[in-house]
């Protein structure tokens, strides 16, 4: 399956060369987890504070669940805030 990884703020440095601003795409085996996707790009799990799957927050246990499907967008931020 093909999924899209988006990295923001200080995590942008983990994007491969040639990535499109925030995003890169990759092939993953069916049944992959969000954490496995992060591992693929060397994003430290403890820096992935906000992990959104298609805009919906993934809680810690869900990041180890085999719930990724083809076409998913996983967007990740370190701890951030504003106002």
């Amino acid at each position: 399956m093909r999924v899209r990884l988006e990295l923001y703020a200080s995590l942008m440095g983990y994007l491969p060369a040639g990535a499109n601003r925030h995003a890169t795409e990759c092939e993953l085996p069916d049944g992959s987890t969000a954490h496995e996707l992060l591992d693929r790009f060397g994003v430290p799990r403890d820096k992935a504070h906000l992990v959104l799957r298609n805009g919906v927050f993934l809680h810690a246990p869900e990041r180890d669940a085999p719930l990724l499907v083809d076409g998913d967008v996983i967007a990740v931020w370190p701890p951030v805030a504003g106002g």
Partner: protein
Amino acid sequence: MAWTRKILRIDLTSGTCTAEALNMAWAADYLGQRGLATKYLSEEVDPTCDALGPDNKLIMTTGPLTGTMASTGGRYSVVTKSPLTGLVACSNSGGFIGAEMKNAGWDMIIFEGKSPEPVYLYVENDTAELRSAAGLWGKSVWETDELLHKTHQDPLLRVACIGRSAEQGCLYAAVVNDLHRAAGRSGVGTVMASKNLKAVAIRGTKGVGNVKDPKGFMDAVRAGKQVLADNAVTGQGLPTYGTQVLMNVINGIGAMPTRNMREVQFDGAHKISGEAMHEPRKSDGKPNLTTNAGCFGCTIACGRISTVDRGHFSVENKPEYWGNSGGLEYEAAWALGSDTGVDDLDAITYVNFVCNEDGIDPISFGATVAAAMELFEEGAITTADTGGIDLSFNRADTLVKLAELTAKGEGFGKDIGLGSKRLCEKYGRPELSMTVKSQEFPAYDPRGIQGMGLAYATSNRGACHLRGYTVASEVLGIPVKTDPLATEGKAELVKAFQDATAAVDSSGLCVFTTFAWSMENIAPQVDAACEGDWSVDKMLEVGERIWNLERDFNMRAGMTADQDTLPKRLLKDAANVGPAKGRVNDLDKMLPEYYALRGWTADGQITPETRARFGL
């Protein structure tokens, strides 16, 4: 005790400046700044008065920790009755003037009456005098600041003043201090203009003493600073990306109000985000962001200092805008950007400069432009009304032009200065105004963040994110993650945020500390500085008392509980994309529980028991 225990009362009608003692019994109940000034307002001003008449008062107020060594201890507020909402206004600002006022020996300055001629207040420690502002009236904030520094030959003078927008009656004019920090919301600058008061210039050299337990205070402050430094948000995220880091987050969860809140995601968000501000421009290789900046005593330093590309159409042949100036915060970027559909980072940075230069609240301005654009698209406004300006969504040139006109109160800028509600009423389409209690929304769509709908509907100053920022929990996971699409538990969450924020806003500290600090970190600092017992419970009790006092002022001003609502668009028209697709804001599921938690009746009245509990 951190309070100086002194108030400066300025009677603008007679031109007198008088020192008086701070009411310490009130300070024990309301702490300082937002709470204490609202108590003074509530006692001294008839809530039904004309906000722009001489019976209204304007209070500039510090908190007990303002001017101390506590991190972010530089905050001050402007409290008055708002001409935009007709309700209590309390606008909080950082920069340096709050600390300067405190260093001059004053907790609060109360302005009353109306000066027969334009004046400014000059304060140097114990000396306070009104001086003619004949040479300042008609000048921008930036010109006024420069002229006052020249007049007084003092580079360390701190200035808070109004720009031309306030003089021209823009209903959401700000009081700007230190060139680009602003008490921005609810038209506090318009009230200042109505009193013929152009500026307040302060020099204070006395220091802030009277701390109850100096050693304990230093220990509590040091511990607090360590927490801020070690926290990823306050130690790294905010200094690096500022509040603008939220642009992509809020867009990602589908809660980005777009094109007058018709849509919930903005396709140009990544072009105007905090990350985009770091990207080198094609023209000169420099990024929009030059550096971060901090307010007095702040160890977070979330402020932005930016430049506009010199070749950009907005600043072509205008070298006065080529230098560094106050850059975009998230709220400004949202209102000027996604709400109008403009994705031109240079254009919105320039417009933000203009907002600082002439004292305009960029949230209300951007949201009013967005409403005007929808009115134009609907045919309710035509180029015959606008003086030929095409108000189509997405047009950066239109945004730039309207900012310049509103700054000076010229042409169609007069209409934009009315704010969204009055503009939409004027052109016969009130339902297109995205406001609560006549104040424009900030940058979170309550269809995608349900708790914010309740926070907006019940905010004591109309639509506002800073009265109860449940985004922290619902989106960012601070202090715990809650589901932004759920309504369960949100009444309690909103109340907790509202009460805690009211207490923080009364202390002299910045609410952004609460991304890292809980009340357990804040109360010991207040307790060591201030006489009395300032436990966590006491702070929260004070916060709740303030909330009820503000509500009481508003009810006496004529507000009714049926104004605790949202525009129909957010209650009836479902979000069209993203995780909230198909959802409206379910306010009716949260509001009754909220009233009950507050100790109010089912129709939103403060009960006698609640009044008695808080001594109202």
